[in-house]
C-alpha cells in the first residue's frame, strides 16, 4: 500500500529520537566546550620536543639537531639551526627549532624518523591566534614540553619510549644513521 514505507521510516525516526534519551550509543554528541573535549588518549595533532628534567628544559632536551626530521618532513615545515659553542664547534643542540604549524599536517613522519626519541606528537588543538604568520610559527620555547607531560597525554607510548631509552643507555650511544636521501 502506498505510504507504508514512509510510515515505517517515521517509526524508525521516532525510535531513534526517544531512544537517544536512554541509549548512549544513539547520541554520541559531546557538548564541547561545556562538557569537556573529545581529545582521546590516542589523538595526534602537532609535534613537540621532549626534555627530561623539569628544572632545566634547555639543558636536558633530547634533540641533537641532526636535521633528519627537517629533511624528511613532507611539507618542509621544520627549520633547524644547530648551536655552535664558543670555538665554533657544533654543540649538538638546536639554536633554532621552528615548526610552522600552519603548514604542518600532523603526519607523524618526523616522529618516526627521529633516532633520538626527541620529537613526539602532542594532542592540543586549541591553537587559534589572531596572527596568521608569526602566531602560528612555534619556536623552540613553545615546542619544548617535559617528559612528564608526555606521560600525561600518551601514557602507554611514553612508557614504551622510556623503556627503549633505558635499554639503549646500557649499550653505547647510537650513531645517527643518515637516511638515504
Amino acid at each position, binding site marked *: 500500500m*502506498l*505510504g*507504508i*514505507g*514512509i510510515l*515505517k*521510516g517515521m517509526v*524508525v*525516526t521516532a525510535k*531513534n529520537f526517544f531512544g537517544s534519551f536512554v541509549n548512549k*550509543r*544513539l547520541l*554520541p554528541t559531546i557538548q564541547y566546550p561545556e562538557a569537556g573535549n573529545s581529545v*582521546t588518549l*590516542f*589523538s*595526534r595533532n602537532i609535534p613537540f620536543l621532549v626534555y627530561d628534567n623539569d628544572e632545566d628544559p634547555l639543558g636536558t632536551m633530547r634533540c641533537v639537531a641532526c636535521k633528519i626530521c627537517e629533511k*624528511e*618532513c*613532507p611539507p618542509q615545515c621544520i627549520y633547524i639551526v644547530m648551536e655552535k659553542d664558543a670555538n665554533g664547534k657544533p654543540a649538538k643542540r638546536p639554536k633554532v627549532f621552528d615548526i610552522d604549524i600552519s603548514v604542518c*599536517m*600532523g*603526519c*607523524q*613522519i618526523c616522529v*618516526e*624518523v627521529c633516532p633520538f626519541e626527541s620529537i613526539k*606528537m602532542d594532542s592540543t588543538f586549541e591553537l587559534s591566534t589572531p596572527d596568521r604568520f608569526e602566531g602560528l610559527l612555534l619556536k623552540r620555547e613553545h615546542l619544548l614540553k617535559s617528559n612528564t607531560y608526555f606521560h600525561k597525554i600518551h601514557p*602507554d607510548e611514553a612508557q614504551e619510549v622510556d623503556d627503549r631509552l633505558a635499554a639503549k643507555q646500557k649499550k653505547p650511544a647510537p650513531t645517527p644513521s643518515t*637516511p*638515504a*636521501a
Partner: protein
Amino acid sequence: MSTETIAPREYQIYSGDDLRTNVLEISMGPQHPSTHGVFRMDVSLDGETVVKLKPVFGYLHRNHEKIAETTSYLGSMPYTDRLDYFCSMTNNWAYALAVEKMAGLAVPERAEYIRVIMAELTRLQNHASLVGFLTNDLGASGTPLLYAIREREHILDLFEWASGARMMCNYMRFGGVRNDLPSGWLAQCKKVVDDFPAFMDEFETLLTGNEIILSRCQNVGVLPRDLAINASITGPCLRASGVDYDLRKVDKYGIYDRFDFKVPLGSVGDCYDRFMIRLLEMRESVKILKQALATIPEGPVNDSKARNFRPKPAEAYGRIEGPKGELGFYLVSDGTPKPHRYHVRPPSFINLTVLEDMCLGQKIADAVIVLGSIDIVLGEVDR
C-alpha cells in the same frame, strides 16, 4: 449602481501555439550543495530535460603527482590520505601495495590481517555515508544522513585509536603497518562490527521500501553493461550494471582469498541498483570482518628495514578495490629515493566519464541523484 462591476471578467487565455522554448544553459556549481564538493556541471536544459552535460572540475587541483615526485617514497604516504579523504586507509594500502610490488617487499601475516580489517571498516563507513548522502540528495534532508554519520563516528573512533587520527590516518607502511593495534582495540572493533547489522536493518526499513526512493531511483540514470565496461567504470557502479568484477576476487591481493564472501550484482544498472549494491556490500564486509577478527594471528606488523629505501629502476602498477572503485598507483623508479613517475588512477575521476550518458534525457533534479550515486570525492577527482 450597475451590477457590471462585480461580474467576473473575461480573460483571454494564450493558446501557446507559437510558444517557442530555447535551450537553457545552466552552470550548476561549483558552490552547490548537491555536488559533494566543488564540482560544476555545465548543463543544457530543454524545459527540465537535460540535453547536454559537461562536468567541469579541477577546483581542488594541487598537482598531487608532482608533489609526490619531489618527495621521498615515504613522504608521499601522508599525502595519499588526502586523495579520497573518506577512505584514507584504502588509499594508503593501494600506495603501499604498488611500492611493495615494485620493490618486492613481503608483508607479515598480522599486518595483512590488520590491513583487511581497516579496509573493510573503511568500506563500511564510506558506503554508509554515501547512502546517507544519497537520501539527502533525494530530499530527506539530514535525518537518515545523520544516522549514517553517527555510525561512521564509531568507526572513526577505532581509526583514531589505532592510528592517532580520525581521517588522515597515515597508518600503512611499506611492508606492513605503522604500529601494532593497541590492547583492547580488537574487542572494541568486534563490538562495533556486531552492532553494525542492526544499523543496516534499520536503514533498510527506513529506505528500501520507501515509495519516494523507489519512484525517484528506479530506472533513473541507467548505465548499460557494455558502456560500463568500455568506459572503465569500476567499483559498485560497475557491479550495479551486472559485471562481476571485484578485484578482491580477481587479483586476490593481500589475503582476500582466505575469506568467504560474495560479490553482489545488480541487473538494471539504475540508481536504485547502485544504492542497493552498497547496502549489500556492507553486509559482505561485515562477514569479512567477522572472519578476519576471529582468525587474526599474533606476530610482527612491519619490517623496520623497509622504511627508507632506494628501489632499483623498475616500474609497477598496483591496484586495489577501494570503496569507490579500482584505485591504482603507477610508479616508475629510476633508482633515486624519489619516484620518477607517480601516477594515481582515481576511481571517481574515471567514473565521471559516463555522467553525461547517464543524465541525458533525465530531469535536472535526477542529475543530482545520478551524480550522488556515482559516489565522487573531489579530493580524488581533482588531485
